[in-house]
C-alpha cells in the first residue's frame, strides 16, 4: 500500500492509497507507530484514497485510541468514502474518532 506523508506546520497528514485490509493495515500501523515514537502526536489521516476498510483496518485506529488520548495528541480522519464511513458508523467508531472533512476546520482543530 502506498502511504503519502505530508508535513504541515501543526500536524502530519497521511494519505493511504488502496484498500485497508489485513495486510495493508500493518503498513499503516507501522507508519503511525513510527510517527508517534518520533513524538509526532498530531495526525490527520486522509482516507480519500481508501475505498474499503476491513475490520483489521479499523483495528489500527482502535488500537491507537488510548495512546493518542494518553499523550494528549490528536488523531483526525477526513474524507471517508461512503463505504468506509458506513463501517465506521456501524461499529460506533465515528463516536470515538474525530472525523472532520473541511480543511479549515482541521487546521482550527489542531490549533485549538
Amino acid at each position, binding site marked *: 500500500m502506498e502511504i503519502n506523508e505530508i508535513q504541515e506546520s501543526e500536524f502530519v497528514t497521511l494519505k493511504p492509497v488502496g484498500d485497508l485490509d489485513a495486510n495493508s493495515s500493518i503498513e499503516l500501523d507501522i507508519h503511525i507507530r513510527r510517527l508517534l515514537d518520533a513524538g509526532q502526536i498530531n495526525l490527520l489521516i486522509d482516507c480519500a484514497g481508501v475505498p474499503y476498510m476491513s*475490520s483489521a483496518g479499523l483495528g489500527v485506529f482502535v488500537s491507537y485510541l488510548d495512546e493518542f488520548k494518553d499523550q494528549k495528541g490528536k488523531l483526525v480522519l477526513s474524507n471517508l468514502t461512503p463505504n468506509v464511513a458506513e463501517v465506521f458508523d456501524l461499529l*460506533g467508531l465515528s463516536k*470515538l474518532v474525530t472525523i472532520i472533512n473541511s480543511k479549515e476546520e482541521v487546521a482550527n482543530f489542531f490549533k485549538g
Partner: protein
Amino acid sequence: MHKFISSNLLLIGLKPKIVKGIIIATAITTWLVVVLYHILQFGALTIFEPSDNGIYPTLPGYRIAFALFLLSNSFFIARSFQKIEKLDVITLLWKLFMIGMGGITLILLTIILHNTTQSYTLARYLDPIFFSVGLYAFLLYFLSAIFIFRRFVLYQRTKRRVRGWTVYLGLSGIALLAGVFPIPSSFTPLYYFFTGIYILLILLLSANVRWIAYLNFNQKLRALGLFSLVVVVGITYLIASFRFPLQLDIPLGILPGLFFLEIIIIFPFIYSVFAILVLFFNLPTSSIFELNSLEIASYSKINQAIQSNLDFTEIMNSLLDASVLAGNARAGWLEMISEKNGQSELFIRKRIDLADIKEIKQDQALTEKVLKEQKYFLVKNMRKHKLFRNNASRYKCMLVVPIMSSSQTYGAIYIVNELPNSFEDVTIQSISNFAEQAGIALENAKLVKRSIEMERYQEQLKIAKDVQQQLLPNTLPTTRAISFNAQSENASEVGGDYFDVLESNPGRFKVAIGDVSGKGTTAAFYMAEIKGIFHALSRTDMDPISFMNTSNQALVACMQKGFFVTLTYLDIDTSKKEVKMVRAGHCPAFYYSSVEDKICMMREGTLGLGIVNGSIFKSYNQDPQVIHYQPGDMMLLYTDGIIEARNEEGEEFGYHRLKNIFTAHRNQESEELTTSIVNGVKDFTHSDLEDDYTVLAIKFM
C-alpha cells in the same frame, strides 16, 4: 596351473588341508632328493665333464627329481601368496625384501661354514648341501617376487590381463621342461626366439602399474625405496649365483633347470624397473592427486554433515576445512550474516587470530560486497591493492567467496596466504563449488525445517478447526412458536464468526451473532471467549444492556490492542411475542414485518466490544430496541462476510442485494432464506469467499 592341480586334487575328494599337506610334503621330499643327488653327484662321484653336445652327464633319475623339485616348490610358493586379498603394496614389498635378506643371510652363513671347514672329506659332502641351500634361497626369492608382483599386475583385473598372466605361466612351464630335458646346442636359436617372446610378454605385463595412482606421496616414496632394495637384493643373488658355485667347485651348467632359473629372474627385474620409473615420475604430481581426492572427500563430508542433520557449526567447520585445504591456504575464516541484525559476524576461524583478521580486512565490508555482487573477490597482492595497502599482517593474498543459495545469502569464506598470487583459478573454482554446495544444502535444510513446521502447524490448525466446529451449534431449536436456521463457513481453517441460540427458560431464547476483527487463529480464540461469556451470561436473567456491558468489560481485559468484537444480542420471549435487541457494532439486522409487508434495517446500536473500557462504553449505552412480533415475521442476522463479498470486478455484494433476496424469500421458511442467501452470494462472487460468513434467520410463528 597350481590352482588347476589343487582343484583336481580336490575333485578326487581331498580336503584343502590335505592338498596343502601333499604340496608341502612333495616340496620338502623333492628338495631332500635333490640334495641327496647333489651329494652323490658332486661329493661322491664328481662327474663334471660335459659331453660333446654341451650336456653334462648326470645320475639316472636326477633330471626327473629336479623337475619335480622345481614344480612342487613353484606350487608351494604360488600358494603361499595366493590369498592376498587386500593390496597392501608396502607390506608385500617388505615381506619380499625380508625373504631376500633371509636367503642372503643363509648363503653368507654357508660361505662362512665352507671357509671354516678344515676337513677336505667333510667339505666334499657339505658343499653340495650348501649349494642346494643357496639354490633354494635363489628360487624362493625370485618365485616369491613373481607371485607377489602377480597381485600388482592383476590389480583391477581384466580378462586380458589374466590371459596375459596365464600365457606367462605357461611359457615359464615350457622353460622348465626345456631346461630339465636338454635340447642339443644346435637348437640355440630356438632358445633366443623363445626368450624374445618371453621378454616381450613380460614388457606388456609390466605396463600394469595402475596401483601406483592410489598411493599417496608418502606411500609412493616408501614403495620406491622398497622396490630399489628388492632390485639390489636381486642383483646380490645374481652375483652370488655366479661366484658361489665356482667357489664350491660346482659347475652351474650341470643344473638341469638352468634355463628355467635364468628365465624366472627376468620378470621381477623388469617389473621392478618399470615400477621404480613410474613411481619416480609420479612423485611430483601425487600431491595434486591427493588434493583432488581430499576435495572429493570434503565434498562428501559436507554433504554428509548436512544430510545427517548435524548442527550448523559442524557444516560450516567442514566447509572452512575443505576450503583451506583446497586453496592450500595458510589460514582462513568464515563470516555469517546474523539473523538478528543482518550484519556479518565472524563465525569460525582457522590458524589465524582476531587481530590479523582485523588487519587484513582493513574495515572493508567484504562479506556484504561478495554477497551483493554474487561473485568471489580476489586480492592477488594486498601490498599493491589500494584498499589493502596498509595491511601490516604477513598475509599478502586473499580470496573471499560468498556462501549463498538462489534465494538466500548466508555469509562468506575467507582464505589467506603469505605469498602473493597464490590462489589459482582451479582453487577458486573448487572453493566456489564448496560454497555453492553448502548454500544449496543450507537452503534445503531450511526448507525441510520449514515444511516440518508447516506440517505441524497444519496439524494444529486441524485440531483448532475441530474444536471450533464444536463451539458452533450443530442444530438450532425449532418449536411451534419460533424456528431458527443458520449457515456458516470459514474462509481459512479457523474463523472468527460466532453464532448461538440458547433456550434459557421454556419459550425464552437468547441469540448471539458476532464477528471477531481479523481472521485466523487469534480470531478463533476470541470467538471461544465470546462463547464462554454468552453461555455464562445468557442463562441469567440479565437484561441485554447489562449483557453487553459485562461482555465488553470481560473482552477489554483479555483482548490484544487493535482487536475487537462486534456482536448482536437478542432476548426473545415467545410467550410475550417480544424481541429485545442490542447491536454492539455489528452489521444491522433486517426485520420483515408481515403485517406491513416491509423489510427494514435496524441500525440503532452501540460501540463494538473490546474497544474502550467499561465507563466509556457505558456512556454510549442505548436502550435495547424492542419489537413485538406477529406470526409470519422474519428476522435476518448476518456477518460482514456476506456484505463485503466481492465479485471479479471488485464490487461488493452489499446491503441492497441482501435485502433483495430477503424480499424474494420473505414468506418462506428460515432454512430456505439462509440457503438462498448463501447461493446468492456464491453466484455473485463466482468463487470461494475470502472472509468468514454467517447468516442466521429467525421465523416467528
